[in-house]
């Protein structure tokens, strides 16, 4: 528990400069690692990281509309596919790649806006129904619009081969493209959900009537969230084509939308970091189940899904929190022979528990009976033991 050292000053004087330095150092370190990693990793690791980036952006969009705003969206894969097709078409036409990227985001966002304008008028589950329709309509549409989509044979477009001047391998070049877009996307999303729109998303999710009474139009916020999600979907589609260099109607099949949803829940709904974990889950679990037994991928994927949801209902992003809770409890047991200390802490939320840990740290030397009881109070939330 090295974290304990950070916890104390943080709780005593919140905007601690020491803590900020640590954060900046860690962030810089992470950035350096992310930048240098592809140069040292084998191609397959890079290719896998690339695909994680692709789906992390898609899950991130889904998280904004579902995790943060609470609107069920089962059509996210449609926007991914749309972005991929726009990109493929643009590349085939020889347009500037930046223009293609902007178009992939814009067109997906525009379609998302149009759908949302209509769908957000409907309540709760009706939105879900409308979004189900998207991939279901999208697949036959992609097959029929042969001029744009290449029909059921799909369309390939290569634009992410490393240029000669870079001296990089293709997988490294792709990695940097995707790192750039993904990092920008995550930064934008983080700022969005932490600002006034994030708060508006949260209120709309909790209670639309309350939102309206606070002067926040639930309709507008829903449309906004849906549109932003579609833009992220389009960006993800662009990345999809950068990574896969091929798209076909299979890309936007409805089943993948459900997989994206599962990835979001597994990663952590309403969490930016959870979206990244969700993307990793989407990509890594099929690899893992393939390695176990390619004939049983569906069964093992279902099993993993159930296990994660049972053990970590808030998603994998809550794992550090849960671990801290468990290790904290264990230390309590070792720290004092008092059998009452083993009282399960399930009734208490994460925050009071942390307080308990802090208390312990502060008074470890003294450790008198009163303090212990105080800790128990925090853990159990009951007063009667005092």
């Amino acid at each position: 528990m090295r974290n304990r050292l950070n916890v104390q000053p943080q709780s005593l004087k919140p905007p601690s400069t020491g803590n900020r330095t640590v954060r900046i150092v860690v962030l810089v370190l992470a950035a350096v690692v992310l930048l240098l990693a592809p140069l040292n990793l084998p191609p397959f690791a890079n290719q896998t990281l690339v695909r994680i980036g692709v789906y992390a952006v898609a899950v991130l969009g889904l998280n904004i509309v579902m995790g943060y705003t609470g609107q069920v969206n089962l059509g996210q894969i449609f926007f991914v596919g749309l972005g991929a097709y726009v990109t493929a078409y643009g590349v085939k036409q020889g347009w500037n790649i930046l223009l293609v990227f902007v178009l992939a985001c814009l067109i997906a966002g525009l379609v998302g806006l149009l759908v949302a304008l209509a769908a957000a008028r409907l309540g709760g589950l009706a939105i879900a129904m409308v979004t189900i329709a998207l991939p279901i309509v999208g697949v036959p549409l992609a097959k029929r619009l042969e001029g744009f989509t290449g029909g059921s044979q799909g369309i390939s477009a290569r634009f992410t081969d490393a240029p000669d001047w870079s001296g990089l391998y293709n997988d490294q070049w792709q990695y940097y493209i995707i790192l750039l877009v993904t990092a920008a996307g995550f930064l934008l999303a983080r700022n969005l959900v932490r600002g006034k729109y994030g708060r508006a998303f949260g209120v709309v999710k909790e209670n639309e009537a309350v939102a309206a009474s606070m002067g926040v139009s639930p309709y507008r916020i829903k449309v906004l969230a849906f549109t932003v999600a579609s833009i992220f979907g389009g960006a993800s589609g662009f990345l999809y084509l950068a990574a896969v260099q091929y798209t076909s109607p299979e890309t936007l099949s409805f089943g993948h939308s459900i997989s994206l949803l599962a990835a979001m829940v597994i990663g952590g709904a309403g969490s930016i970091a959870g979206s990244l974990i969700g993307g990793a889950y989407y990509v890594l679990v099929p690899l893992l189940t393939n390695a176990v037994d390619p004939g049983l991928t569906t069964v093992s994927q279902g099993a993993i899904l159930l296990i994660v949801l049972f053990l970590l209902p808030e998603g994998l992003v809550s794992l550090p929190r849960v671990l801290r809770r468990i290790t904290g409890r264990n230390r309590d047991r070792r720290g004092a022979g008092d059998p009452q200390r083993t009282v399960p802490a399930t009734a208490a939320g994460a925050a009071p528990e942390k307080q308990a840990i802090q208390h312990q740290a502060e008074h470890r030397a003294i450790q008198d009976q009163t303090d212990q009881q105080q800790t128990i109070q925090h853990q159990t939330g009951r007063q009667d033991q005092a």
Partner: protein
Amino acid sequence: MRKNTRPRGVLGIVAVAAVIALSASGCTRGGTNQGGGSNAASPGITDSSITLGITTPLSGAIAGQGTCTVAGVTAYFGALNAAGGVKFGDGKTRTVSIKSYDDGYDPQKSLANFQQMVSDNVFAATAGLGTPTNRAFREAAISQKVPQVLVMTGDPLFSDRKQSPWQLGFVPIYQNEGAAFGKLIAGSGQPHKVAILSQNDDYGKGYVQGFKDAIKGASNISVVGEQTYEATDTSVDAQLTQLASSGADVFFDAMSITPLAIASLQKAQQLGWKPSWFLPSNTSSPAAILGPGGAAAYPGIYSVSFAKAPQSPAFAKDPDVVKFLADLKQYAKYPDMPAFPHCMWSYMVGATLEQAFKTMTEPTRDNFMTALRNVKGLQAPLMLSGTSVDTTTDGQPAVSSVLVQKYDGKGYATVQNFG
């Protein structure tokens, strides 16, 4: 309080990711430098073994067919490995190991599987089923010079040498099949009215194109009705009702969806329309489609094939079939009677590969492709007499000759004449 913990959670994750990335960065890029010495062995082949990879749908709607594509090759080489291995053209005897990967018919996953194959040091990708899934890694295979051969797609692109130098299709392209049936009824000399229902994509269009080319100029054949459906449709009742009213006595049904094929066999009976049917090879399984569809009610169900059907009583005692079923059971964990022809096709893929292995003189992918493109007149086990493997013609898959067959209530028997 909660607000303070958030960024730390994020930081923790970033830190963990960083540690993983750092620890993994010990690995370096190597072993993939191609085109060095011409005699240096390609990845995936040693003096005693060779590794092949298959990415195919093992889950989802076409898992049945996909499982078969793995089972056939595995059974074929399982038997050879048990007997010591394959004697290659360079004089060394190697065992053949098969790695299979599930792509669930998702192009993105099949590309991922291909990338994994490369990192797993697979010599060549083979036998995978599906047009989009094979197309998804076609360009990657070309740029990395990894053979993607004898794949199960009727897409002609894979047999075009200029566009696909490292590819080769195995099964007949769609046009081959449609043409074989067209030729049969055109040669019957009798007047026939044909109704056509086809899937609105390259699959259906390929069949119809082959069929129409074959009946061109045959005055006894007239097409009286033509309808299409989408691969995503769940019913073709409307199209069937329309076609039934055309009074056609022959129904050319270019359909690739198993449940739809069963439903249309049933629906036409309900409508009282009983034409002679044509069904493509991958939707004409006696056990999986014709039985449930009540096909015995029709005067004739025709399909094309190049493989002996194990279900057919005519082949029950055929030595090829007996050995095939035993190999499937023993080496591929596939104890049942194969429900899809892909099991047989994939077994023949094994035989074709063996032939190429026998003639390749250097353990390189380049040399393998040369050897593979040089197989001619190979009568692989389970092949019907009159068909053979021929990889020497540009634009044609390894098997381009098919025979028209008629359903006899249990299996299929080759027919020379229509009626």
